């Protein structure tokens, strides 16, 4: 889930913060310090996250486009300049554009808005934007909610009391609500200083950027893994099940399925599954990272040499063209598979299905998938020539059965012509003739379209009179028999108009 850091560089950010007995800081310095801490944390624990840095005042500027180069992001932070007033609305338009250009409108995105809680004055201020929210035309819509799913984190370089003195807090809360409500407002706890700002960014890291560690199990084989990006809680139906579902930290493989059988299933999210060394300290929150970076190679080299289940699993999934079905929680499943990128690098990936007992109709209920060893005979056949999938639905869909629809006149005409065509080829086409005749009869009875039955009966009688001399005598018998039966059906007499009843060909062969 990419991150956009939206940094307020208006003049109010340069307000000094008085610190006891040390040099003076600006709020901007505190913000930069906090962001540096965030970037350091990401560089060591969340380094696959794509992050962009934008600065805004009355205008906005994309300082660093989306990438994973945290040095570049930190460099840009150290070169921030100061501009005029805060204008959040235009900055949010900027975020919307930048994100959609890069990731489209389906990819969820995190926005970290760093500001001091003075939200501008006059036109373009947040207060002004929110006040005239409802009186806008379609062309001047407020940028929230973004078209993409958003998590909005508002980092205030100010404490809650300060924000509550004005309407800043209210406005920020409204902003969060407009963004979809997913996110949080962080304020400084206590007096403004390095330590309290650090603590605030520390809670952001815990809230939004703590790596997701889990153990992948396959029976007794297991591996410690990091799942990236971390799986987010999912709400399926806010009415019936309002509590969000979260992915277990124990991921249990339940069995294996061929790629062709699982056949491009829909997924709610995709994640890399990265094996990690067990006793590596993971969450240092940006402290003393430099030392560790130096030690890391040897540690990772060691880890590289001891066998890991993920690598084995990945290799076999790739070779066999299979996926592993993995349980993520109660009635929630996903799949593990090998994913290769264009550069021939490949990786173990996990996709999450929609929570529920039957996420893929063609597999049936997942809880009712059992081991093949229990089946009377191998459902895949001795030579893997068969497959128990896909599971067939009990009732065929309309397009898979020969349904009768006469909404368009052409539908009705086609069906009548089919009968007449076969009528002219009697007795060769006796079976098809009666099949089509019965299909029409059934539909006409259901639709209460008795007039049609009479009409077709007349048509058949006419066909009978038009039969050439060379015609087989059977043809005449069958035509008049069929016409008679249709007429009986059109009378509504329950004996002849029963839906399940079929007109049988007249028995004309008396030799047997």
């Amino acid at each position, binding site marked *: 889930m990419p991150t956009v850091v939206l940094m307020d560089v208006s003049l109010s950010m340069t307000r000094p913060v008085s610190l006891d007995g040390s040099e003076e800081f600006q709020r901007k310095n505190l913000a930069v310090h906090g962001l540096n801490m965030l970037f350091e944390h990401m560089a060591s624990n969340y380094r696959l996250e794509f992050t962009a840095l934008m600065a805004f005042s009355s205008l906005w500027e994309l300082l660093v486009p989306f990438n994973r180069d945290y040095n570049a992001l930190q460099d840009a932070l150290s070169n921030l300049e100061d501009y005029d007033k805060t204008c959040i609305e235009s900055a949010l338009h900027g975020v919307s554009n930048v994100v959609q250009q890069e990731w489209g409108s389906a990819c969820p995105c995190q926005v970290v808005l760093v500001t001091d809680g003075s939200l501008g004055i006059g036109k373009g201020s947040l207060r002004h934007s929110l006040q005239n929210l409802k009186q806008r035309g379609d062309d001047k819509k407020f940028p929230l909610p973004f078209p993409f799913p958003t998590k909005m984190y508002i980092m205030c370089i100010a404490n809650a009391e300060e924000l509550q003195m004005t309407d800043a807090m209210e406005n920020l809360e409204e902003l969060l609500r407009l963004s979809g409500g997913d996110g949080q407002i962080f304020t400084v706890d206590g007096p403004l200083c390095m330590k309290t700002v650090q603590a605030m960014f520390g809670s952001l890291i815990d809230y939004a950027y703590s790596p997701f560690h889990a153990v992948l199990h396959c029976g007794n084989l297991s591996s410690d893994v990091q799942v990236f990006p971390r799986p987010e809680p999912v709400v399926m139906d806010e009415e019936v099940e309002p509590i969000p579902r979260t992915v277990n930290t124990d991921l249990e493989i339940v069995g294996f399925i061929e790629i062709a059988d699982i056949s491009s299933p829909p997924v709610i999210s995709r994640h890399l599954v990265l094996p990690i060394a067990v006793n590596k300290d993971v969450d240092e929150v940006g402290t003393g990272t430099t030392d560790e970076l130096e030690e890391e190679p040897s540690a990772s080299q060691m880890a590289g040499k001891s*066998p*890991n289940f993920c690598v084995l699993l990945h290799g*076999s999934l790739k070779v*066999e063209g299979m996926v592993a079905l993995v349980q993520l929680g109660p009635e929630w499943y996903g799949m593990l598979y090998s994913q290769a990128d264009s550069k021939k690098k490949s990786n173990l990936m996990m996709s999450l299905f929609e929570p529920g007992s039957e996420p893929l109709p063609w597999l049936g209920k997942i809880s009712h998938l059992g081991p093949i060893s229990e089946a009377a005979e191998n459902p895949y056949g001795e030579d893997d020539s068969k497959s128990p999938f896909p599971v067939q639905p009990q009732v065929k869909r309309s397009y898979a059965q020969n349904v009768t629809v006469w909404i368009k006149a052409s539908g009705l005409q086609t069906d009548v012509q089919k009968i007449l065509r076969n009528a002219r080829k009697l007795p060769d086409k006796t079976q098809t003739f009666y099949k089509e005749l019965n299909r029409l009869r059934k539909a006409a009875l259901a639709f209460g379209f008795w*007039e049609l039955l009479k009409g077709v009966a007349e048509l058949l009688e006419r066909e009978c009179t038009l039969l050439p001399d060379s015609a087989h005598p059977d043809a005449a018998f069958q035509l008049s028999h069929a016409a008679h039966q249709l007429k009986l059906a059109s009378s509504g007499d329950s004996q002849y108009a029963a839906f399940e009843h079929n007109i049988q060909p007249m028995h004309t062969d008396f030799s047997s």
Partner: protein
Amino acid sequence: MKMFSVAHKTVFVVDHCPYMSESSRQQVECDVLTKSRAQGVIPLAPVSKSLWTCAVECSMEYCRILYDIYPKDKLVNYVVSDSEFHILNSWRRENQSTHELMAALAAVGPPNPREDPECCSILHGLVAAVELLCKITELQHEKRTALMDTAERVANRGRIICLTNAKSDTHVRMLEDCIQETILEQNKLAACSDRLMAIQQCELVLVHIYPQGEDTLVSDRLKKEISPLLTSEVHSVRAGRHLASKLNILVQQHFDLASTTITNIPMKEEQHANTSANYDVELLHHRDAHLEFFKSGDLHMAGTSTRENGLKETITLKWCTPRTNSIELHYCTGAYRISPTDVNSRPSSCLTNFLLNGRSVLLEQPRKSGSKVISHMLSSHGGEIFLHVLNSNRSTLEDPPSISEGCGGRVTDYRITDFGEFMRENRLTPVSESSHNPAGKLPVERAKAQLERHTRYWPMIISQTTIFNMQAVVPLANLIVKETLTEEDVLTCQKTIYNLVDMERKNDPLPISTVGSRGKGPKRDEQYRIMWNELETLVKTHAGATDRHQRVLECIVACRSKPPEEEERKKRGRKREEREDRSEKNVSKETEDKSWAESERLKGLLEKENPESEVIKDSPDSPEPLNKKPRLIAEEVQPAERAKGPVTLLSMWTNRITAANSRKHQEFFGRATSVNSKFELYQHLKEENGMDVHENGKASR
């Protein structure tokens, strides 16, 4: 859409009063004469549908689309109203099909024009509809049971679609009032019943049908709230084509559907088999399949076109001729069932049959910029066709570190093929709910249990294992993981074990990995010791399962050769108290090795050459054959290795190197049995003198 939105329950109430038998005055020419036959034949007079026929066939089309796209849990109850109400089906899932409804409709037949219009009213049906909405559905019941104390989260909402011929706006208002009253009454009843639920929200959609060429007596009205419980809207539509398109729009609105037109479908013409013309087919599906277009606001860019009636939009996607090798895992963010709008037209059935035969079609989004973007895929699964939404944006997971760069990435001898075989054995298969014993474990739990059994001992790399590199062990290894063994299975396992004993007697080489090794590998005896240890480890993990599993273990214990050095150790153990210097060290080692030594003791019950091994296999406690002379040559086990247990990486490594070298030449007896490359000469002399020559592999001087 919420699980229990108004879309969960739909009641169709169709007017069956005498005036519905009136003609719609839309005529259908069903006798299309071909030119050659036209002479002298009087064509049949065109037929025309009654209002009833129009109402029924359009409502059936509504249901057809609904059932195609929501085969489960969007339910329809069909009511016909004349002098009384007739309920044609129930909320039960098994009653939810167009076939079921058509059969019931055929039994009802068209309205009787001679019936007394005074006795007939749509009201009977509407009252029945409200009562039906109070009835609990299977899904409501299941969810209420599952949620237990939060059962109130299960809502009861529903929609009534009334197809009738109303007399006036006042008549419509009377109907609405009546429904409102009935809801209040029924809700009171429902409050004191377990099988009924009070209605929280009801949506009335009244469709007034009138014949072509007449003026309507009822005016259209948008949705309006009659009460907090009831909303109502009125559509006044001419019978025939207009009614059909109205209900088509309604089904889309009611069930969040959208339309996609597949364009450029190549189809062979019957007359010109060698050419193909391009056709378009319109499909309906859940509108989330267009989410990306809606959100990004480029609906128009994506080839939207508004129909001539100005009411419905469709998105055009272009057919891409499929490639043949399509076993590929696409990144798909949604899959939605489809229903063709014109199901029995030739282009529609051509497309659906093509897909039902197992082919997939990628669909391209027409873009102004000219770049080709594949955004969707049509594919069938088990007789159902789905529109898959493919991700066409940049991936946030691009350029990840390769798995070979991470943990375990440098290891090269993973048992990839063996694990592949393991995966095949642990494939899943659907177990029908009828054959599942509800008291027993769920199939998926049994699958997990099988994985657990199969992985109790499963070395991940080739150089960590001997037995799994041996063809001879396969029968046993395959059987021992089973939950239960038959007598025959036990026999097979025993045969496998005897076969191994036989191999050992013949001194057959073992496939101990020698990749990259230099120097000497372990001796043959040592190899067999490793192999037996490993086999025992494998079987031990299963021995607790059943008595038969236990018997396999006992067979191994009884059959495996007893390493002579064990004999030595025991002798030493007896003498230990007399010895001074190293006793402490030995004791600690002895405890470490206790379990191992115990098993070794059991193994030691039989000499490897003992041909009668089988005879005593069931009595592991029988006394040791003390008369056997210990063989000294096996005393080459190194101290480090001994301290750590039977198989350590170091020993594996050493074994590998030794094995590689030993293959190259016939080893000197002395070197072959040497310890730390030292060999005590004249051992027999000291032996006879009862002196302890070797101490943990170190020759005493």
